[in-house]
C-alpha cells in the first residue's frame, strides 16, 4: 500500500517531544539537587 511520504515530520515531532520532556525532567532534578 502507498502512503504519503511524510515520515520526517513524524520523526521530528517525536524528537522534539523527547527533548522537551527530558529537558524539563533534568531541570527539575538539578533544581531539587541544589536544595537538598
Amino acid at each position: 500500500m502507498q502512503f504519503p511520504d511524510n515520515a520526517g515530520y513524524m520523526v521530528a515531532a517525536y524528537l522534539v517531544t523527547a527533548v522537551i520532556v527530558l529537558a524539563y525532567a533534568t531541570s527539575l532534578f538539578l533544581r531539587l539537587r541544589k536544595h537538598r
Partner: protein
Amino acid sequence: MIGRDAALRTARRGGVVTVLALLGLAAIYVRALVFTPVERFQGPAQKIFYIHAPAAWAALVAFAITGILSLLYLFLKDRKLDLVAASSAEVGVAFGMVMLTTGPIWGKPIWGTWWTWDARLTSTLFIFLLFVGYLALRNAVTDPGTRAAYSAVIGIMALVLVPFIHVTVYWFRTLHPQPVLVKPSSPSLPGVMLVTLLLSIVVFTVLYVGFTMQRYALAVLRELKAEEVARAVS
C-alpha cells in the same frame, strides 16, 4: 505547608513516578512507531497524534487543576493550595510546549501550513501565553500573600478557557480535527490505534503527577529557605 523532611520525601516519590512514566513514554514510542499501523490517508505523520493529543490532555488538565486550586486558595488561604497550583501551572507549560510544537509539525504535511489563526489554535496559544504570564508574575512579586492572590486570579481566568477550548471545534469553523475520544458518541478510531492513544494518555497523566510532585517539593524547599533567610536577617 509541609516540612523539609516531608518535602524531600515527596521529591523522592515524585522522582520515582517520573522515572516510571519516562519508561512508559519510551514504551509508547516503540508501540506507536513500530506496532501501530500507518494510517492510509495521512501516512506516518498521523502517528504524531499519539503524542500531540496526550500532551494537550496533560496541559489542559494541569491548567484546569491550577484554576480549581486557585479558586480554593481564595476561599481557604492555604499556602499549600497556592504552591500546588503554581507547580501544576509550570508542568502545564512544559506539556503546552509539546502540544504547540507537535501540532504545527503535524499540520504542515496534512493541512499544508504550520499554523492558522482559527479558534482552536488561537485559544490554545492564548491559554499557554496566559500561563507563561502567570509564571512571570510569580517571579516578579516577592510578597507570598500578594503573589498567591494575583496568580490565583489569573488561574481562575484560565480555568474558564479550558472547556471553551474543547468546544471551539464545534462552535467555530476550524481546520483542527474534532475530538475522537471525549465526545458524546463512541471513539472514532480503530482498536489498535485507540489502545495506543489511551496508553499514551495514561503515561502523560502519570508523567504530569510525577513532575508536579517534584515541582511542589521544590516550591516548598524554596519557601522554607526564604523563611530561614528572613529569620536570619531579622
